[in-house]
């Protein structure tokens, strides 16, 4: 074997490990949790399916500001508040069902966009410190939100629906319960068990790959190797799936228990599609250019401040949609705290999926969503089985969410620090060489 080559592989592996250390740590924690919690796999899978689709849009809303170099957008909390305002309005007018939710979203879009513009303007004044600004802005907005819905609704803003108002007529109830028509309205439209969904996915995927192979073969008169490989993997997975569904009882139960909300799934796919599409447009490449380097983008004639505001607006609006999907799934929400942890948990989930302050994609969001919720499901029971106290598991999962963010922040800042040192070191070296000459 060539020693040079193994060395290269070694450094590649090391680079990958250091780049994905947050994810690897988290997988370890999840594995320990699953082992000690010893819950049935069908329960875990069905819970993940529910939670993943409930939260995925919120996690996806974080991606574009990362492209724009603004880091993790803690101010998606404002989008969540806009969504809650929309829901409160439709419930005040007794609107029902899916139409009600659509109107709630329609109300929250201009609200979220307006808040997004203000946020973007503030971020433009605090370049380099967007994350802390976003976080403090979230707390500030919480105060304003409480002022509006706890004290101004009733005396100043005319609202009198006894279903959501407090008895005194001042302020909205602390807990809002949606009626049967709103509760899960989007999810209820069409649900499919996992096995049927997998049949469809395998069918579509195989058809797509075969078509592409045939099309490529006809056009270029040679087989597309990458496509062939993918088709092989696809067929292999399909055979495993068919074997599992026919002969493994636990897998059959898992598939039956896991009901996938198809409409929510489509919405997620639309948002993913939008993000991919945006990445290929002029706007998307401008956003990424701004994220790479503001001075260079400016020199290239990009309106940096405007692009940054657009990125925040998109993020806030997607977050508003995400929060509506999240709350309709839950069916009830605490008026004054449902938005509080949205930022922290979504960000932690994205980071767990392998994203960083500088890099984020759809794959990170999905993988992170699965891993993060896996930890949330197993932690209390694992805590109970290890320490004899479920509370410890609950504290642990909060700790893990904060620690993941802290670790990602430290690693990012550390990397910049090291790079800068290397740069100045190189400069000093050049200076010395020049002196010698």
């Amino acid at each position, binding site marked *: 074997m060539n020693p040079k080559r193994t060395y290269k592989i070694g450094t590649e592996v090391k680079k990958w490990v250091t780049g994905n250390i947050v994810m690897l740590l988290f997988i370890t924690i999840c594995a320990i949790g699953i082992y000690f919690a010893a819950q049935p796999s069908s329960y875990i899978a069905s819970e993940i399916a529910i939670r993943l689709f409930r939260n995925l849009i919120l996690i996806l809303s974080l991606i574009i500001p990362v492209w724009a170099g603004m880091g993790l957008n803690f101010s998606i909390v404002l989008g969540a508040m806009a969504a809650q305002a929309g829901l409160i309005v439709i419930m005040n007018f007794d609107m029902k069902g899916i139409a009600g939710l659509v109107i709630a979203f329609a109300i929250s879009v201009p609200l979220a966009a307006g808040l997004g513009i203000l946020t973007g303007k503030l971020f433009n004044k605090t370049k380099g*410190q967007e994350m*802390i600004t976003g976080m403090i802005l979230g707390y500030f907005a919480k105060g304003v939100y409480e002022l509006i819905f706890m004290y101004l609704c009733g005396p100043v803003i005319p609202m009198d629906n006894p279903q959501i108002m407090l008895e005194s007529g001042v302020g909205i109830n602390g807990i809002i319960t949606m009626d049967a028509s709103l509760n899960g309205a989007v999810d209820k439209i069409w649900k499919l068990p996992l096995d049927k969904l997998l049949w469809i996915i395998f069918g579509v995927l195989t058809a797509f790959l075969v078509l592409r192979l045939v099309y490529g073969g006809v056009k270029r008169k040679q087989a597309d190797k990458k496509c062939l490989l993918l088709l092989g993997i696809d067929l292999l997975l399909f055979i495993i799936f068919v074997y599992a569904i026919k002969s493994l009882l636990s897998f059959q139960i898992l598939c039956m228990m896991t009901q996938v909300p198809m409409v929510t799934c489509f919405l997620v796919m639309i948002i993913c599609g939008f993000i991919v599409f945006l990445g290929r447009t002029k706007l998307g490449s401008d956003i990424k250019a701004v994220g790479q380097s503001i001075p260079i983008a400016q020199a290239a004639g990009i309106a940096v401040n405007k692009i940054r505001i657009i990125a925040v607006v998109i993020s806030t609006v997607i977050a508003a949609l995400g929060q509506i999907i999240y709350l309709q799934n839950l069916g009830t929400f605490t008026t004054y705290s449902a938005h509080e942890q949205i930022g922290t948990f979504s960000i932690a989930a994205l980071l767990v999926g392998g994203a960083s302050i500088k890099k984020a994609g759809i794959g990170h969001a999905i993988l992170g969503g699965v891993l993060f919720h896996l930890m949330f499901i197993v932690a209390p029971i694992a805590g109970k089985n290890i320490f004899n106290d479920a509370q410890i598991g609950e504290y642990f999962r909060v700790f893990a969410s904060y620690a993941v*963010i802290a670790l990602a922040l430290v690693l990012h*800042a550390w990397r910049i620090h090291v790079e800068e040192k290397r740069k100045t070191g190189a400069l000093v070296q050049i200076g010395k060489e020049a002196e010698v000459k």
Partner: protein
Amino acid sequence: MKKTKRYIQKLGVPRLIMLAFLMILLIAVGILHIPFTLTLSQCIVRVGINIVLALAMLPSIRSGIGMNFGLPLGIICGLLAGMISLEYNFTGLMGILMAMLISIIFSIIVGWLYGLLLNKVKGSEMMVGTYMGFSIVSLMCIAWMILPFHNTGIRWPMGNGLRMTITLEQWYDRALNELWMFKIGEVEIPTGLILTCAVFCGVMWLFCRSRLGIRMLAAGSNPEFSKFSGIDANRQRIIGSILSTVLGGIGIIIYAQGFGFYQLYTAPLMMAFPAVAAVLIGGATASKISVGNVVLGTLIFQSILSVAAPVASAIFPEGNLSEVFRTIISNGIILYALSKIGREE
């Protein structure tokens, strides 16, 4: 005219808004017939118990770290030391002194490690500090449940771990406040508390004028330049972080004795923000601060809060309007300060 304009500029717009707000609240106190003397007594105590926590911002800002959002690290040290002092049943002033001494030991270690970390993440201190604080507070939630404390007074009567809030009646409830306390009319003057605060402020004032303090200021305001005068900026930042953590630990003990109880678990999570807000209201910025800023800021901020509480509950008996005001004011002023950082550079 010119003089007043210059005076206003010196005072700054945010402070004027805060003072105007305080005036309105005081007028409301008059109109609503709220007992003024009681409010004043509470106000004095609130300023006293919060001032050392706000003072913790001084060494961190002067050494160049900026606003110390990692203050919960110091607070945790103070709480742990407090628990140890309760475990061994130290009472009265002795208890407070013991708690402070133990907390200093913890704080020096934690502050040193925190300083080392902050030196590696220059430029992101605020965010890293915030999330380090959050992580450690939530990790300590687990620790409070499993640490081997045995005193039945501080443990849950049933179940695992320490209590959520621990009333200090048996130990040192308001021991500093009641030391040499006297009354002017109906207003209680907590002499011991005021003296303690004065001592800490005085020590920090002297520190700012000492050789070390000046070196720290030089390193904080211009690390590149100070290198040529033989000052190690990283070392100064570590000293700043240690001092800040020590003051945070002592601050929470003074706060707890004046409040009457220790609050464990998630209580310290958000405690950095009011301290940061107070010094900013007092005229500090992300890179400039003096003892005067700390005292003035705590005075204005805590006065607003203690006057707002009875006014708010007189207007809206239900709910907690003053808490909403606190959230808006403290985060609003931090946002204002953040928006100024870029302009300063």
